[in-house]
């Protein structure tokens, strides 16, 4: 019997199981502070923070999101601005705490997440110094960094600028440096949040190629977040779509995902308007 792609997918080990995950945020500043004080008081008495229904000014940034991430997958998370993509990534990376649900992690030793590429870089320090700084932030020790230094320099293709201050780098160069350090941490789970948006096409192509090779190793998976849908075609082996905090799509067929996403974005528009918008998006993205 010939194995289909779909079947081999389901046989693979589940690395992360996101179960009915919800996260609330507050829209109004003072209410946000007030709820914060209440939570701090509850927590100082050893109680859990408020986990009941939404209070005034609150909304679900994520609402009952569930999906599995398998070994060897490159999962693309797409959705419009404010659909909860980054929040979801921060929950998986352990930066935010869950309000409801669970995230089960199975055999992941190292997680590396890149949100803002510049985070933690110091503009007055040289590229080389920033490699050490950034690497240390990803949890590398001095010894590990020394071993990986050649790889980082080679991958970033920044040899000639290594001794210039990073403040003089273009945003694309900073992205290359940070991305190279992140990938050198050799994570089991690699989370990339819009981090490749600024790199030049050549570097991006190289990263995508590298990622596809990367996940062929045992016990590796990648999640990347984007709202540039063309990127999805390039690498993803699975796509999930978020819409206002809800997961509305989960499939391994990238082309089908794109069509679904665009149609969803345009729902509620008249037939005629939808046609023109669709054409415009296609002209822009394809």
């Amino acid at each position, binding site marked *: 019997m010939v194995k289909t792609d779909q079947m081999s997918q389901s046989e693979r080990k589940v690395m992360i199981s996101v179960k009915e995950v919800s996260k609330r945020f507050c829209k109004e500043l003072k209410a946000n502070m007030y709820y914060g004080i209440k939570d701090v008081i509850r927590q*100082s008495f050893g109680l859990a923070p408020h986990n009941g229904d939404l209070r005034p000014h609150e909304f679900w940034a994520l609402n009952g999101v569930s999906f599995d991430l398998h070994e060897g997958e490159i999962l693309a998370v797409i959705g419009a601005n404010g659909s909860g993509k980054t929040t979801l990534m921060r929950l998986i990376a352990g930066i935010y705490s869950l309000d409801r649900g669970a995230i089960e992690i199975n055999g992941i030793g190292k997680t590396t997440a890149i949100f803002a590429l510049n*985070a933690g870089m110091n503009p007055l*320090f040289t590229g080389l110094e920033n490699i050490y700084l950034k690497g240390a932030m990803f949890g590398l020790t001095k010894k590990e*960094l020394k071993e990986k230094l050649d790889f980082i320099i080679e991958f970033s293709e920044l040899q000639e600028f290594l001794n210039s201050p990073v403040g003089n780098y273009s945003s694309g160069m900073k992205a290359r440096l940070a991305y190279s350090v992140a990938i050198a941490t050799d994570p089991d789970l690699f989370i990339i949040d819009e981090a490749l948006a600024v790199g030049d096409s050549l570097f991006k192509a190289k990263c995508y190629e590298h990622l596809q090779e990367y996940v062929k190793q045992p016990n590796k998976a990648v999640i990347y977040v984007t709202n540039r849908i063309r990127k999805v075609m390039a690498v993803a082996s699975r796509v999930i779509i978020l819409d206002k905090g809800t997961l509305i799509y989960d499939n391994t067929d990238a082309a089908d995902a794109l069509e679904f996403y665009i149609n969803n974005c345009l729902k509620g528009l008249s037939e005629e308007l939808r046609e023109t918008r669709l054409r415009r998006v296609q002209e822009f993205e394809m």
Partner: protein
Amino acid sequence: MVKAVADLWSGLRDYRFLIRQLVRVSIVGGYKKSFIGLAWMFILPLLAVLVWIVLNRAGVVAPGDTGIPYPAYVLLSTSIWGFFLEIYKSSSNVLANEGKLLIMKDFPKEVLLAEKTVVHLINFAIPLVLNICVLLLFGVRFGWASLLFPLSLLPLLLLGLAIGMIVAVLRIVAVDICTMIDEGMKLLMFVTPIVYAPKIEAGWLSGFIQWNPLTYLIGFSRELLSRGTFFEPAGYLACSLVAALFFLFALAFFRATAKRVLERLVNN
């Protein structure tokens, strides 16, 4: 409680390379563009010290029996006070100032506290060496017990960090309380024997001074360095114990609340 400290320690050990890098960035970063660079770390305290030498020459009246020349007394007192206040300032701002970084990276928040502490110790040690020279110039003679001076500052460090950790969390959600605490810390200097002697007769103030733990924590270190004797050892030990317990409490509070409170940091 032992577990909490052990946890903290092993967490910091795993990230010791990061702590080193961050300390380097803080110390060297400020002077990166300067041609004389780290020399500023010596020049600035030297200038501050010159002020006191000039004051001494001018002959300032000594308020109360300070035991050593008044300018020397004030110089030493203010530097110990500064030791306490500066660690409070840097630790209490850690979440508000570095919160943006903390929601981008998943390293433990205590790493930044450790970095602030190390930077603080370096920033304190350099002027201290100069201050000691000036004290010698003023005729202060040190004894062997003076060598214990750095160790005697530990309770002050713990107390500053403890208040700092609590305020760091509150600074994100309870701005009004923090403004009050910040101002209170400044006023605290005037109700602590820093620019006057501990045995001053000043009505209600005398009573307050007597119950102010800083009277003992600062006074003990000051007298240890300047005269090699112990100021109110029982009061010092009691306050030290309270400071240590308060530190453990504040650490537990910080660890329990910092993560969630950071989600409410709006300016990211």
